[in-house]
């Protein structure tokens, strides 16, 4: 194998409260299509930003053709031959194709842009990309998305990029346009240009990729996997699976099979997101929803909570119809949303204010709040959750991911010990380190054993199987399977999640 164009080893990037990258190794050789796989939050975007010079790593080294290098800013990375094509294609709509291609380094003389030169060189680049049909004088805003993507690649070539990073390029393309994208990528790699291809779509990786690197929790979970022969199931397992590095506590008391349902969802539908979802959760039961990103699982959860309006169908919590967030909260429903920071926390507010946000009524009289009572209640409830550090006056921003999640859970426990009936958990352990995971699992288990009904969404199959009593599998907006967790294993769920049915045969040998 030729010497790597770019080589990363032990790259670490820390943001306050979260270790976004925690030891990433990656090498990219000229002329290859290197695929980067990982769930949301695995660290892909942070890694892209480091490669493109937007972030600087805290630890670890980057080597460019064997030479250690640091990129002080995006321009430095560009000069080193690394171009990034972002999903949202950072083109200027009102400028022409040619102007976009040479934006920032237009051919010029005495400060004047050489317009003829600009056009000729742009046209050459478009021909090289096999698209002489895109007029270089046309303004980019008038082009279709696929054509804009070609222009972005043209810009990369104008910088004489040796490595082009593509962030989910197919996400914005129609099916037949993807074929054209792949043809372009093959042309580029034939010239020795390397491509770092980021996508969720395993079929594409198989078709275009040479090697695969899997990121998980900010670490390289696997690298140098052959893209064409590694079975899908292996890839998904490496993205979502876990070795037993933490413990899910077993249920201590058997589930009361006769308990009345707390949550009854009937034929819930939001067109384009999910259709005809019906499920029930009993008091004390944990129902897991397994499914990939885009299967509609989070949307179902938010609709049950009243945060999205259902097109049809009903949500009933212990006899009360839930249609709005307000009615859900009053009925005793709590939500720990998928994006803790943007959907749940007031990052610059102290912990106690975050904890009591949904229960201000309990701690006020005639609309006047009682900070003393709130702080005391927040202190009590967070002490029960073993919040660390145990100072409720700290800002929520300063906490680690696991402790931030505890604050979110505390919000639904405070002042309503007996009235919390249903807890909706969306990816409760995302971005949470191993030790805190174990604590959260124990906490969820304890809540369930106290009689709270729990609806758990997770893309980590072992988490769903280990914690839930019953599992519902969602795929493309529909429930494709429902079974007791004890009757399922990881492989069966992975098959259901990807294909909608359980395959009988063992996985192919890679």
């Amino acid at each position, binding site marked *: 194998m030729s010497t790597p164009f770019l080589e990363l080893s032990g790259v*670490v990037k*820390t*943001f*306050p409260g*979260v270790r*976004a990258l925690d030891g990433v190794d990656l090498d990219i050789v000229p002329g290859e299509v290197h695929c980067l796989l990982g769930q949301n939050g695995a660290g892909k*975007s*942070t890694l892209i*930003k480091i490669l493109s*010079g*937007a*972030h*600087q790593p*805290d*630890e670890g080294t980057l080597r460019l053709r064997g030479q250690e290098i640091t990129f*002080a*800013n*995006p*321009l430095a990375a560009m000069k080193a031959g690394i171009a990034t094509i972002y999903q949202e294609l950072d083109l200027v709509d009102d400028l022409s194709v040619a102007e976009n291609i040479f*934006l*920032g380094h237009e051919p010029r003389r005495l400060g004047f842009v050489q317009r003829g030169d600009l056009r000729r060189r742009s046209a050459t680049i478009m021909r090289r990309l096999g698209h002489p049909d895109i007029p270089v004088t046309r303004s980019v805003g008038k082009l279709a998305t696929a054509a804009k993507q070609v222009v972005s690649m043209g810009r990369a070539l104008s910088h004489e990029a040796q490595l082009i990073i593509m962030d989910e390029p197919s996400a914005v393309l129609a099916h037949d346009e993807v074929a054209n994208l792949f043809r372009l990528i093959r042309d580029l790699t034939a010239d020795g240009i390397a491509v770092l291809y980021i996508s969720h779509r395993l079929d594409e990786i198989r078709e275009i990729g040479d090697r695969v690197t899997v990121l998980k929790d900010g670490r390289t979970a696997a690298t140098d996997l052959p893209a064409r022969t590694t079975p899908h199931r292996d890839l998904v397992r490496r993205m979502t699976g876990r070795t037993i590095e933490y413990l899910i506590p077993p249920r201590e008391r058997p589930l009361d099979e006769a308990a009345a349902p707390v949550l009854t969802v009937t034929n819930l539908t939001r067109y384009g997101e999910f259709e005809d979802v019906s499920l029930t959760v009993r008091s004390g039961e944990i129902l897991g929803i397994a499914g990939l990103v885009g299967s509609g699982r989070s949307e179902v959860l938010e609709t049950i*909570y009243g*945060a999205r309006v259902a097109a049809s169908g009903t949500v009933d919590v212990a006899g009360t119809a839930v249609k709005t*967030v*307000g009615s*859900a*909260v*009053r009925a005793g429903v709590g*939500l720990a*949303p998928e994006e803790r*920071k*943007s*959907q*749940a*926390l*007031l*990052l*610059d*507010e*102290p912990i106690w*204010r975050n904890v009591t*946000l*949904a229960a*201000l*009524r309990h701690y*006020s009289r005639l*609309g*006047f*709040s009682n900070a003393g009572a709130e702080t005391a209640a927040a202190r009590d409830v967070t002490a029960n959750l073993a919040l660390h550090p145990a100072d409720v*006056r700290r*800002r929520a*921003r*300063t906490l680690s991911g696991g402790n931030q999640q505890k604050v979110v859970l505390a*919000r639904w426990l405070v002042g309503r010990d007996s009235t919390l009936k249903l807890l909706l958990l969306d990816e409760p352990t995302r971005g949470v380190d191993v030790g805190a995971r174990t604590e959260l699992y124990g906490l969820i288990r304890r809540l369930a054993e106290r009689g709270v009904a729990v609806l758990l969404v997770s893309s980590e199959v072992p988490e769903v199987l280990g914690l839930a009593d019953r599992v519902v599998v969602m795929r493309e907006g529909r429930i494709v399977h429902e079974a007791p967790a004890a009757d399922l294993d990881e492989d069966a769920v992975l098959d259901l999640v990807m294909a909608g049915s359980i395959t009988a045969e063992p996985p192919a040998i890679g």
Partner: protein
Amino acid sequence: MTQIVQTAPPAAPARSRYWRDDASEPIRRNVGLVGVLLILLIIGAFSRADIFLDFSRFTNNEVIVLRQAASIGVVAVGMTFVMISGGIDLSVGALLALASVWSTTQATQGYGPGMVIVSALVVGTLAGTVNGILIAYGRMVPFIATLATMVAARGLAQKISGKLTQIVHLNSINRLAVRDVAGIPLLVIIFLVVAALAWILLNRTTFGRQTVAIGGNSEAARLAGINIRRHTLIIYALSGLCCGIAAVMVTSLSNAGSSTHGDLYELQAIAAAIIGGTSLAGGRGTIVGSVLGVLVFTQISNLFVVNNLQLEYQLIAQGVIIVGAVLVQQFRLTTPRRGRSASSDPPHQSGPPLAESATGT
């Protein structure tokens, strides 16, 4: 002589100093603003020693400053609530004019001073409610919604008054401006009472807490079960109510209602709130800061006046001060990292992405 040990990630502690002191930040800022006020008085003492070093002339001058500050201050208090909730109200000056004109028509004055005051408050509140409905239920951007009502309310005020100044012939209204209670001008007392009530509302009630929550993270507030639309509506209505109160004050100061009252009040109120530390992005701000911001702003204007400098210079200075206050605020909000630091996960989502635009091309 000792080397810093390289094991800990060096960036985290360096950055954390930007919020380590956050809890005391408003207090430090307010102490700083008091310092600025003192400096302004010292400048006054140097430039016009005859006024600032003579006790009775100084007192008279400061009473003038405070009377001017009072009406702007009441508007700025309402504006502070709006801005903490993440919005903006450009219509305040126009609402003030509308309320002053409406409450001083011959018909209204015929019912006596009580009716003048009540109608000003009602008109202000209702106009603010219109803002609230457009923003909360019409889902309009606050900037555009209040820009529209700003023009429309000013136009309505001109239509009602026929662009004429409506002289107030009720002595009890006119005397409000010159009355003192225990040696303090009544207008200043009104301002302080409004500010005190607003402080309680913001800091001691669930309403205030929810306001901060909505401005800090509206999605989190919504998912915590807060009725954001109703809350937003009430906040803009409150801002309108403040305009109504200020309308009575201005009317009494000028002995007249006019469609030109409240000119540039939106600018001065927003500037005062920013100087006082209210975030343009919402989620943070203090009433005390805004009160001090108004005092600073008015005192600067006063220095220009007593030194016989032209109004043009005063306007230029006001512009410079606003730019300076915003720059200071952005500098505090932007982490000192290079590159496109305003990404989705890392710390500051609220600060305008200065660093980003610097390296954008």
